[in-house]
């Protein structure tokens, strides 16, 4: 028996869509291979999601979204979707839990933190080089750290890491790209965080299986610079999670994000996209939840059209007339 809707992912866009569809009795199943809540769940603190005057922990926000979607009947399966195949009215999804079929699919797989691609990064992965401060920060109590990156994530996670580390060197390739609020917050931690602008990261060096220093270049002086450290956290941008759509006919843009039309539908009818993985997404939790809701309404429209056939041209584009 096919599901009405399978959502790939369980981050903010996915949970928002699931809330809308399950509330309208659309049989909705989500598949998540990582953390429910996606990157939001591994973000220490979220200050710019509406409705939380003092901000909210990323994990707490994710939990609330999960519970709200489940309250209306959305089911979350812990497993990985490995392949999507368009079979016309039905879509076949190959998953670690077996094959499943759906009338519509929403891809909301988000993105993951990019690797920086310097020598030493792979060698010391999870043994001194990390991508999740909330997961691994606690191992660096009273130790020195290097954070690589200058965007919102790098700033936010550096501030979080001051709970543990004795000192943090933040290496920023050009200028800080974080929000003004976070830049002000960083300034409040100047006793613990030293920001090195125009500084590239060239190599992560270790000895006896442990990271000992990061070697970079000060672009102003073109001189090599070294930062002794016990660990490195990398936050240099995001990479879309799209590996499983290879061969499905879904189109990607030049950066690997999924292209959609204005209804958030891909080139393959019945397969929709919302959130960070969509080409043109603004990579914010608030916009992801908005896109999730929009996608849900478009999916409802699609499912109804599949059931009863297209409406006369005059009313197409005015869903409120028959919604």
């Amino acid at each position, binding site marked *: 028996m096919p599901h009405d809707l399978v959502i790939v992912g369980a981050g903010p866009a996915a949970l928002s869509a699931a809330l809308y569809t399950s509330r309208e009795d659309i049989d909705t199943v989500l598949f998540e291979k990582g*953390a429910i809540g996606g990157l939001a769940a591994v973000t*220490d603190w979220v200050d710019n999601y509406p409705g939380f005057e003092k901000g909210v922990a*990323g*994990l707490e926000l994710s939990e609330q979204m999960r519970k709200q979607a489940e309250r209306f009947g959305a089911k979350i399966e*812990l497993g990985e979707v490995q392949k999507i195949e368009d079979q016309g009215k039905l879509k076949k999804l190959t998953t670690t839990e077996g094959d499943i079929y759906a009338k519509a699919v929403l891809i909301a797989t988000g993105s993951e933190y990019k690797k920086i691609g310097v020598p030493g990064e792979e060698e010391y992965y999870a043994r001194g080089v990390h991508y*999740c401060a909330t*997961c*691994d920060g606690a*191992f660096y109590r009273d130790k020195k750290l290097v954070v690589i990156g200058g965007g919102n994530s790098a700033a936010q996670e550096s501030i979080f890491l001051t709970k543990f580390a004795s000192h943090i060197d933040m290496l920023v390739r050009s200028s800080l790209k974080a929000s003004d609020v976070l830049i002000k917050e960083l300034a409040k931690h100047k006793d613990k965080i030293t920001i090195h602008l125009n500084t590239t990261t060239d190599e992560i060096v270790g000895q006896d299986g442990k990271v000992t220093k990061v070697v970079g270049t000060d672009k102003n002086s073109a001189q090599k610079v070294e930062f002794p450290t016990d660990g490195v956290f990398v936050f240099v941008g995001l990479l879309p999670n799209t590996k499983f759509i290879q061969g499905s006919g879904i189109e990607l843009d030049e950066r690997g994000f999924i292209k959609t039309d204005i209804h958030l539908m891909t080139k393959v009818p019945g397969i929709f996209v919302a959130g960070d993985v969509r080409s043109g997404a603004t990579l914010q939790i608030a916009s992801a939840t908005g896109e999730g809701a929009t996608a849900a309404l478009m999916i409802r429209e699609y499912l109804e059209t599949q059931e009863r056939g297209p409406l006369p041209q005059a009313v197409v584009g005015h869903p409120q007339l028959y919604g």
Partner: protein
Amino acid sequence: MPKNITIYTTNTCSYCPMVKQYLKRKGLSYDEVNLEKHPEMQAEVFEKSGALTVPVTIVTKQDDSQDVVIGYNLARLAPAIA
């Protein structure tokens, strides 16, 4: 059915609840060791896993052999508990 499962966690780790939830859904019980409450265990876990990260799940099988699963990695965790 494994003989014993131990999950090593920290207070802020987001993937740790996912491992616990997965095992619960499979009807398996486990012991949890919070490495922030028991920092003396960190070196031992690092020695077993080779990774300074959590969650680390150690599955002890009936023949006392062990599988060490780093992170919330269903591709490794599912066969380990089978």
